[in-house]
């Protein structure tokens, strides 16, 4: 073993040790707790655990988003607005033109079909449906976010999702054509 080889090994190991030790100290001194990202994303989601994203609930959806295994457009009730916020949060550029300019839709109960079986308001995540046993039920449009779970559950197909009619208050200018 020539001397230069020996000294080479010696120098590198000492430098490695020295720098390793220095970084160890710095790591302890600059420690940062759990990644706060997941909680922030969960706070942004609607929190109704409606399952339309295919994941059991909003916390697991947040987890999937944080680990970037799920697209930001996974949450229909959140719509384009939530997708845009999530995209900004995770700093990814996403093409939202695919999501149509969706008009909020509300569940509407057809009185002739409703036999008061109360299955729908048990499953509604926001208590938007009101009605007693064997009485015709009604839907609070204010509280309904159009998640559609009640439509699936209703035995007599009395529930349908109806988009909101255009009104002067909600109307806004279309985007002009640009050359």
């Amino acid at each position, binding site marked *: 073993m020539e001397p*230069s080889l020996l000294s080479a090994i010696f*120098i*590198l190991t000492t*430098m490695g040790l020295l720098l390793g030790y220095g*970084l160890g100290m*710095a*790591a302890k001194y*600059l420690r940062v707790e759990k990644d706060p990202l997941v909680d922030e994303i969960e706070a942004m989601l609607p929190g109704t655990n409606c399952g339309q994203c295919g994941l059991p609930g909003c916390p697991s959806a947040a987890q999937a988003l944080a680990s970037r295994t799920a697209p930001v457009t996974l949450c229909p009730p959140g719509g384009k607005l939530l997708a845009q916020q999530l995209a900004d949060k995770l700093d990814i550029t996403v093409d939202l033109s695919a999501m149509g300019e969706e008009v909020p839709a509300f569940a509407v109960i057809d009185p002739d079909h409703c036999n008061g079986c109360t299955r729908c308001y048990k499953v509604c995540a926001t208590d938007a449906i009101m009605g007693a046993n064997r009485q015709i039920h009604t839907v609070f449009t204010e509280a309904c976010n159009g998640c559609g779970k009640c439509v699936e559950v209703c035995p007599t197909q009395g529930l349908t999702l109806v988009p909101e009619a255009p009104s002067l208050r909600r109307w806004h200018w279309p985007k002009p054509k640009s050359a």
Partner: protein
Amino acid sequence: MLLLVGTALVNNVVLVQFLGLCPFMGVSNKLDTALSMGLATTFVLTLASVAGWLLEYFVLAPLDLGFLRILSFILVIAAVVQFTEMVIRKTSAALHQVLGIFLPLITTNCAVLGVALLNVQEGHGFLQSVTFGLGAALGFTLVMVIFAALRERLAISNVPAAFAGAPIGFIVAGLLSLAFMGFAGLNFA
């Protein structure tokens, strides 16, 4: 001083010597991230050229371990980058999250290692190697900021779909280096 302007403009690290292209293309989408990336690289690069010089003249030259130069430089640069990453993660998690993978990548940034090695190759003294490192880093940051502003302008203009994103970025980088050729042969004699 002349050396500083020379390395920053005349043979700019990115546009003339074509070093450090991956962060140049990767992090230049937004102006403020490009600026912070430039500053982080300046910090690392200047430290690296100083450490490079110290290593060369106090350790490698006396024991003529020239063959160890690249290995030891990379070791030191990696340590400095790791330290920088910890500082950034501590000070602003947002910036750390935005820079993301490109922060540890400074270690492999060819400009950082390149400048350190050039220092040794040119036989710069201590002061010269610091100004050389600083000049290269300032050149890098300047060009990063200019390029980021250009890409932000491209982001809001309707570039044809075939060129949108990276392709137009490469074209603009090419045109920018074409422009920097104007500084070729600039000497204040």
